[in-house]
């Protein structure tokens, strides 16, 4: 079974973190939004950061993705050439390139991650042009492929996302992010604000894309059901600190910290 062997080999050879956070902190004056967070993320691994509003999870996501400068600690990332670099030492151009190619960022509000007035095809194609694609019909073909993969009718390719429903916009944002085949995608409450039925479809889509593309994902969510469905590992945050961490099913089925127990017991049974 050659396939089996290569899968095993993958697991062994990927034994090097993709992203490494060390003692990451951020304070605004006297208020500490994020305190002493350390973890490593491996290729293909999905990490959920859970906690209620104000727990520091969105600040952490911004620190990790280099959008916010840390007050202390550092984030390093293993670049495509295999060299692990401290994000703070990257130049602005290098950081932008990383964001356009090897990283994705899915915002809760699709309007933040899309250009609402240009066509869906252009929204997806733009990321390809940014990495040097210039053949119009190839760009359009790839964009159509991706719209199909995220279950958007090709007939809508020339429409602007402002004519789309919330769920379609979110799927378009995902296509725009994945078209450059990133290795790491940050997601900030990707299902927040959507109807339950639309959420289920989106989660299901994300789950299969993540597995198929072997994506590493850091997903911020306050919804434990989302964490359970998508993530391998969970970090629970409260007051800017990580108070509990472990395998997702361990933390959710056998929560240890009082706050985690409160979170878990607050879910209504399905």
């Amino acid at each position, binding site marked *: *079974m050659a*396939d*089996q*062997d*290569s*899968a*095993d080999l993958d*697991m062994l050879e990927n034994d090097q973190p993709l992203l490494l956070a060390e003692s990451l902190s951020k304070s605004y004056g006297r208020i500490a939004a994020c305190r002493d967070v350390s973890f490593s993320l*491996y290729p293909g*691994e999905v990490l959920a950061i859970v906690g209620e509003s104000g727990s520091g999870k969105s600040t952490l996501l911004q620190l990790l993705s280099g959008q916010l400068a840390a007050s202390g600690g550092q984030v390093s990332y293993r670049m495509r050439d295999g060299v692990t670099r401290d994000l703070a030492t990257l130049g602005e151009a290098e950081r932008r390139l990383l964001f356009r190619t090897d990283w994705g960022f899915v915002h809760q509000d699709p309007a933040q991650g899309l250009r609402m007035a240009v066509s869906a095809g252009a929204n997806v194609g733009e990321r390809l042009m940014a990495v040097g694609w210039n053949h119009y019909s190839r760009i359009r073909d790839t964009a159509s492929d991706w719209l199909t993969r995220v279950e958007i009718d090709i007939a809508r390719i020339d429409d602007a996302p402002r004519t789309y429903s919330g769920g379609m916009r979110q799927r378009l944002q995902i296509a725009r992010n994945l078209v450059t085949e990133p290795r790491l995608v940050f997601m900030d409450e990707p299902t927040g604000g959507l109807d339950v039925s639309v959420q*289920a*479809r989106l989660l*299901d889509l994300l*789950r299969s894309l993540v*597995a198929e593309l072997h994506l590493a994902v850091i997903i911020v969510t306050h919804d434990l059901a989302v964490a359970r*469905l998508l993530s*391998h*590992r969970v970090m629970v945050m409260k007051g800017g600190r990580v108070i509990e961490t*472990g*395998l997702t*099913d*361990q933390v959710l*089925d*056998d929560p*240890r*910290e*009082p706050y985690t*127990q*409160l979170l878990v*017991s607050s879910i209504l049974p399905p």
Partner: protein
Amino acid sequence: MTAMIDIAAAKKTFTMHLQGGIELPVVSGVTFHVNASECVVLSGPSGAGKSSILKMIFGNYRCDSGRVGIRHRGTLIDLAAAEPRQVLNVRRATIGYVSQFLRAVPRVATVDVVAEPLIVNGLARAEAQQRAGELLHLLNIPERLWQLPPATFSGGEQQRVNIARGFISDMPILLLDEPTASLDAANRAVVVELVAEKKRQGVAMVAIVHDDEIRHLIADRIVDVTSFAAAA
């Protein structure tokens, strides 16, 4: 004989912080081993901690103390002290868990639900689906249902889908949590035969079965869980 599972002095307590920090002892001093080609059945009344022990072996419940030795790719590793990544690797390659209830994923066809553990381990989709079909057939799930998501199936059908999913892989260790609970006689017989086949392949199994007849048919050894009752 090499033990596939070697669990020693494992202890589990729940601390209920929302109920004033009550300590709920579950089990302590859990010690037994399971060899290859052997099915050990856990016995004891409801609430004695049988399912908790299975969850400790699967790494789903964390132990307070003790050791959960699992033979994974030829070496014995302590799951009670393993890193999350290691636990995931063990679940991907070594330990399968057949629970009573299917955690249905919306929109995924039954045949793919069953085939998934093989696909995750790198088997080609077509081949995985073919093996899934064989098992579904054996467990009397009509072919017209294979392309439908199991979410709308009856409880018994969902359970059989779950059994197919649990038995499809070539995991050297299988944990069976009431695999025959709501099945009719014909399907119970199928499960008994599946267990026998796994034994012939050298698989080590730990099972919880309430049905005395089934227990006699599959158990090589019985471990009485009441002896691990935690002192309150």
